[in-house]
């Protein structure tokens, strides 16, 4: 699963493939989401990027990970421009 939600820790863990998601775009997504959550981005060896998000409010925990990925994908599209 690319998105894992840990409600006890109030934490979302996202694993994204480096071939499809650029780390710079993920960082700027995190910057744009700073009012909703705190987080960190780690580059993993297995061609993956690990993102850990800690939402400021519990109510958004189910959708935040998905919205984060959607936003990153939108930035990737703008990056490639077709």
């Amino acid at each position: 699963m690319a998105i894992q939600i840990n409600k006890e820790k109030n934490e979302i863990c996202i694993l994204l493939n480096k071939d499809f998601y650029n780390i710079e775009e993920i960082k700027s997504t995190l910057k744009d989401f700073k009012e909703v959550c705190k987080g960190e981005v780690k580059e993993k060896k297995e061609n993956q990027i690990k993102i850990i998000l800690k939402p400021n409010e519990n109510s958004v925990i189910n959708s935040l990970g998905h919205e984060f990925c959607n936003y990153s994908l939108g930035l990737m599209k703008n990056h490639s421009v077709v």
Partner: protein
Amino acid sequence: MDKNIKINEDENCILISVNPEIYPLDVIYSAAYVFLEKAYLLLEGDPKKEIIIKLTAKERINKEELKKIGKEFLNELISYGFYKKQSEKNNLIRQIILQRVLLTGAGENNDDCNSLMEETEEEDYLDDPKGIAIPWEEKYGDKKNGNSDK
């Protein structure tokens, strides 16, 4: 029939498998962008062999509707794929037109443009070389008494 579409009704999602040789990554990004409002999208797989797009509907929908979204996505892929092919085909002619436009602006007509600008800069707004400015008193004033205060 739809071997590249797999529906998972329990997870409210659909997995679409795409061949990157037919649909390049930038075409997939563009098609995905259209669906960002309707669904949550994730890209997985191998960018050289097989790209898997996971579309999770934002609202709970049935199997048929999920299938419909999947097919709409495939349509978008074709649409953007065609757009990309056309824009690549027209790339050279677009460049030529743009070059021509820019050169026209910077070339022979530029002298005319500069002289016009110089003329305009030299003129004062109070000048009336064609004699079209008429004083208010002359046009609307009391012509009998020559009184302009009325």
